């Protein structure tokens, strides 16, 4: 049986993400910088996964496959972080508390191992969700 945990998700900046974004959102650098979820090693242990393996992150609005990483900036147990960008926004709830600003940080997600799943590219995710993706799966 696959294990699952519920973590509190935040989506934030990082300098790697900034540099990669300026290189271009379709570059391998952007993929590498943003298609990851950072979580505390303790939480990885609870999930029974190794670092650098695929996980499925599911929120109230959707799911995304990303690579689990040990954080470069300490993240306490219970908190997860995806750098802002295409992968994060697959799961960010658009609810705004009537302010215009979505819930980019502080929403519950379920994380489960997805060892055999492939992490999709930025174009595949965005074009895929609006019915324009012409590539394969």
């Amino acid at each position: 049986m696959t294990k699952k945990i519920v973590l509190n998700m935040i989506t934030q900046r990082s300098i790697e993400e900034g540099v990669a974004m300026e290189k271009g959102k379709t570059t391998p650098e952007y993929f590498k910088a943003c298609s990851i979820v950072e979580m505390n090693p303790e939480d990885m242990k609870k999930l029974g996964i190794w670092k650098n393996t695929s996980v499925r992150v599911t929120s109230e609005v959707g799911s995304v496959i990303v690579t689990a990483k040990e954080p470069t900036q300490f993240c306490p147990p219970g908190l997860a972080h995806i750098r802002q960008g295409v992968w994060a926004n697959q799961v960010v709830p658009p609810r705004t508390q009537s302010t215009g600003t979505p819930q980019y940080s502080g929403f519950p997600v379920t994380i489960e191992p997805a060892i055999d799943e492939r992490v999709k590219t930025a174009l595949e995710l965005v074009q895929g969700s609006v019915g324009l993706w012409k590539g394969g799966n």
Partner: protein
Amino acid sequence: MPKWITQVGCPYCGASCDDLEVLVSDDGKRVLETRNACAIGNEIFHHAQSPSRPKLPRMRQPDGSMKEVSYDEAIDYTAKTLLAAKKPLIYGFGSTNCEGMSAVARVAEKGGAVLDNCASICHGPSFLAIFDNGYPSCTLGEAKNRADVVVFWGCNPMHAHPRHTSRYSIFPRGTFTAKGQMTRTIICVDPRETDTAKLADHHLMVKQGHDYDLFDAFRTVLRGHDIPDEVAGIPKKTILDAAKVMKNARFVMIFFGMGCTHTDGRNHNVDIAISLTRDLNAHTKASIMAMRGHYNIAGPGQVWSWQFGFPYCIDLSKGTHAHMNPGETSSIDLAMRGEIDCFVNVGTDAGAHFPIRAVEQLKKHPFITVDPNICMASEISDLHIPVRVVGVEEPGVVYRMDNVPIQFKKVVDGPEGVPSDEELFDRVYERMCELTETEPIWLLAKDHAKAATNAEQ
């Protein structure tokens, strides 16, 4: 001989550094090297050279592919699409100059559009708090020269504004802060131990989403009342110590970011931060500043406040007067309620940075992207119109995070035939006037103003 151009502005983050040096090739067309920029700024100047940059508009064909079209065709399509729409939304503007923002506003007015900028998904909640509670702020020079206690609350400049700490907030030696970092006590409030927190003397590892409670605790302590043993995951003693540091400061500078505006409570986290700043002024001098994101995201707030009286979420669909109510007239709320029937993305990437559910809603209608580069928005658009890169190929006024205007330079020529945002939107406006058989009054007014300035000189 290649030549170094000095005092160049960096078109990336809200620090809007204006001390870059750029080495430009003999023919004035290529950037060879940069000095002083951080890794992100450096990347922008080099990326502008990329041979893969589009130089003509591209229109989506029935088979889903993109085909190059002329600028005239792209302008005609944009003008007609805006006029045909009942409620178009024009969004973006983190990354263009004030001249471009002003030109877009004339188009929005003509098209009865909603005009919104990236503030609505960023520091928009800070605007709401400022409307409620005021903005006891200052310029970054004040912080550099005076602040001996610096608080970073829910922001991580080491990653988001990489030279902020060395130019303004931690390391520089100012007039009354001559020993630089030695003079300053740094307090960081963040649920993670960020690289900014690692530089801090006091790191309050707040429970995510509980910033309001912690602000409340600080205010309670400053007013001389007791607090519980622990608030928002922070022990009482830590709060008392940090409050004492602030109270004994000569000048407290509070910087705040997405840790306040993107979480539960949004604007209320900011309005209590402002209240705390006011309270501190009973004891010492204190000031607060929003860590604005893009190099000119303060620009639309300034330009449109002057034009319409509102900084963002401006509904111009009534034709005669503007209306603003972010819960109702923001891009995301309009998109999620399906109230928009045309989307124009300018100098931003809504395709990557909006929640995907909002992108899906917007994509049900004509979708136009105006941006120098290939991005997610351009790749799902019906039409992508390339423009020159402000700060690299196009000069102009930008507003730094503290609303100080800076004149950015052009360092190299843009690709031939590619217009600036301002030129492009002036042409769209002109075409809209032709189609509706009306006078392009704003362009005439602009010509008059130019002629008057020339006559003065």
